[in-house]
């Protein structure tokens, strides 16, 4: 055996042939949203503004760790918990309270136990699980209709899951508002059993939400579509968690058995902890059990079971009355600061002398504002003013502060006058 050892040691020495397995791998294009942050980091201008990725900033432009989160972390640390694997579906305390938050205390769905809610890797992970679940088990259709426009990552997620991407009219560039008649028209023509993606509140990227009466008409219009709600901003939009979940709850009350993705990245500031949930509203508890078993089969070969830390924090907040109260106040505070910045931006644009109508800046809701800027104007804003945003004219209001809103208004006016 020693001889073999020496033989192999001397016989098999590098280099191998000089070509690589990966010679044919093309350089992937940078992610349009996260790529903005990278470009921002490289900029040396002292006045630079990052209005790209949707992460909340306080009025000093700093990341904001919620007080209820810090308190929850201290509570958790004192408990000296172990680190044993969670169940595939995640932390029970979390999934229960996650569903309760979305559906409300008097939800008939919760009372009859006909939902299954699993913990996911934040909103993306939830959409990934959902898209793959539908692809596998929703045999009636492989079409998913996204609003035009939608969050950029929706498309590759559904495509990767093997679904066909379609679109319905949503944003009206002439009003910077909701194209209600266009949406109704497109929805009425969707083949039955198609999947339709609806943003529950604070539409990303436009900030344009249907009004309650409009939601009602949409819910009534076509009863045979599979509704997929993406709720990434509950509480963050209006400052009121029940108001922001109104559309979700209304559709369920009207008899739609929806599927729902939730994220706690923004409303609890738990971005990097990856806290989310995926819910399927089923006919009854028995069906929910079957669906649950299949969700586990789907999740296991992706990541086995979800990460504990963020879910534990979220569950602690949701289930501890004192912390829950603080959280509601803090979420209200974040939403309020955004609303104030919208008002200040519009006011500053007026005082800059802009003759354009900037009402949409105030009317739109949530973290993002679809300014209406064209790509060339965006490019100028970036090059000449070091204001970083996505090409579609979307800005993250969270990046606006009382300290820089004047500069921003000045820049926007300069490229649009």
């Amino acid at each position, binding site marked *: 055996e020693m001889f073999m050892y020496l033989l192999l040691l001397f016989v098999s020495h590098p280099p191998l042939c000089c070509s690589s397995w990966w010679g044919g791998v093309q350089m992937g294009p940078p992610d349009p949203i996260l790529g903005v942050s990278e470009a921002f980091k490289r900029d040396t201008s002292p006045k630079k503004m990052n209005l790209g990725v949707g992460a909340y900033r306080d009025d000093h432009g700093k990341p904001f760790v919620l007080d209820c989160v810090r308190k929850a972390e201290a509570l958790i640390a004192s408990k000296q918990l172990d680190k044993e694997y969670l169940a595939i579906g995640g932390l029970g305390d979390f999934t229960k309270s996650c569903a309760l938050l979305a559906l409300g205390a008097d939800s008939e769905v919760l009372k009859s136990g006909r939902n299954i809610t699993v913990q996911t890797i*934040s909103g993306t992970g939830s959409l990934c699980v959902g898209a793959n679940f539908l692809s596998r088990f929703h045999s009636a259709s492989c079409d998913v209709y996204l609003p035009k426009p939608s969050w950029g990552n929706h498309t590759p997620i559904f495509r990767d899951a093997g679904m066909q991407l379609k679109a319905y009219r949503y944003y009206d560039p002439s009003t910077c508002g909701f194209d209600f008649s266009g949406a109704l028209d497109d929805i009425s023509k969707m083949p039955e059993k198609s999947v339709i993606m609806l943003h529950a509140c604070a539409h990303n990227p436009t900030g344009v939400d249907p009004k309650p009466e409009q939601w009602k008409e949409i819910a009534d219009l076509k009863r045979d579509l599979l509704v997929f709600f993406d709720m990434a901003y509950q509480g963050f939009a209006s400052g009121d968690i029940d108001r922001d979940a109104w559309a979700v709850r209304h559709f369920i009350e009207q008899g739609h058995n929806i599927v729902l993705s939730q994220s706690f990245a923004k409303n609890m500031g738990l971005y990097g902890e990856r806290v989310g949930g995926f819910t399927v509203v089923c006919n009854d508890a028995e069906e929910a059990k079957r669906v649950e078993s299949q969700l586990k089969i789907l999740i296991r070969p992706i990541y086995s079971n979800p990460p504990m830390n963020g879910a534990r924090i979220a569950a602690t907040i949701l289930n501890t009355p004192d912390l829950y109260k603080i959280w509601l106040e803090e979420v209200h505070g974040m939403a309020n600061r955004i609303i104030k910045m919208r008002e200040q931006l519009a006011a500053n644009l007026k005082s800059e002398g802009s003759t354009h109508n900037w009402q949409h800046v105030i009317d739109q809701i949530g973290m993002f504002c679809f300014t209406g800027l064209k790509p060339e104007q965006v490019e100028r804003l970036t090059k000449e003013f070091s204001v970083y945003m996505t090409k579609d004219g979307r800005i993250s209001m969270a990046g606006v502060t009382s300290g820089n809103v004047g500069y921003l208004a000045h820049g926007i006016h300069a490229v649009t006058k």
Partner: protein
Amino acid sequence: MSLFGEVPQATPVAVFKLSNDFKEDPNPMKVNLGVGAYRTDEGQPWVLPVVKKVEKIIVADNSLNHEYLPILGLPEFRSSASKIALGEDSPAIQENRVGAVQCLGGTGALKMGAEFLRRWYNGNDNMKTPVYVSAPTWENHNSVFANAGFEDVRPYKYWDAEKRGLDLAGFLGDLETAPKHSIFVLHACAHNPTGTDPTHVEWMQVAEVMKRRKLFVFFDSAYQGFASGCLDKDAWAVRYFVTQGFEMFCAQSFSKNFGLYNERVGNLTIVARDADNVRRVLSQMEKIVRVNWSNPPSQGARLVAITLNTAELFAEWKDNVKTMADRVLLMRASLQAKLQVLGTPGTWDHITQQIGMFSFTGLNPKQVEYMIKERSIYLMASGRINMCGLTTKNIDYVAESIHETVVNVQ
């Protein structure tokens, strides 16, 4: 009529069902030798002392927040994790041809590697490229690759049930006959579920065939440090393959060796020909990450990075790892000795020859059923036991039970 009316009830994942059944068993003598998590001699989960220390450091650091990590993960985690696998002085690292992706545990790392290979390995569509996994292997290997789109996941000969050891001839034979460019999933150390690893010479023979036949090397390294108690020793195979010039993947898990199971800490280490190839590969990995989880969880990665990059903490961690490995070695020796004293029929040397958390006892399904039903000792149908489930308090009961089972049930 529901859209989901036809969704069938799926069979539960075996290892978790076993734990469930164990939980519901009222027998005070019950022992759980199922799922692979470390237990102390009191039968309790063990949060490593170094982990507790670092958690306090993190809590006290007000400069830390919960912002998104980059898509590929925490940079200082990725580089230090790869160093652990490849070695501080790895030529590949010095030559700048190593990349890494922080993933959701070992499973996530396998998933990312599988998804990448299906898209980019050996031409653009690898649905038909054979993926070989050992017979037997961790059952989730099959699902990970199948769900990533590989249609042809096959076994390679590995475990010789008769001699209770490695079927080297069978293994090498399958390597020789595998279609060129096939992908092979290799267990870096502490093979799950058999606990049987190739020797150094055997690994060299495997490498020789794989190089000659242009087979792809995909290491699964879930037990580094946990097997022998020594990080470098447990990484020998991975590092040998690097010296042989392979481009390869290594899926790393920090679930066991850091005891961070539920924080989902994993790393996919990529060794390529040169830096340019690494760069392009990572750019495509980002696309795959983005549609699965966007960016990975920060807590566990921070913990590991701080530990690996701080000298005293690193030393303390290695010590904690040795503590776990030593207890397992002690239980192995103890069990084997007791079975010999009892005169249990058969040979039991494999208990001490096997390495890591698991042991393939050789008990057949009927015997396993007997152990569970009559003795409330829970183990996998394959006869796999988790050595960590053994303690000085229950080892006599387990040894006697194995003895009684082997004698009464054929």
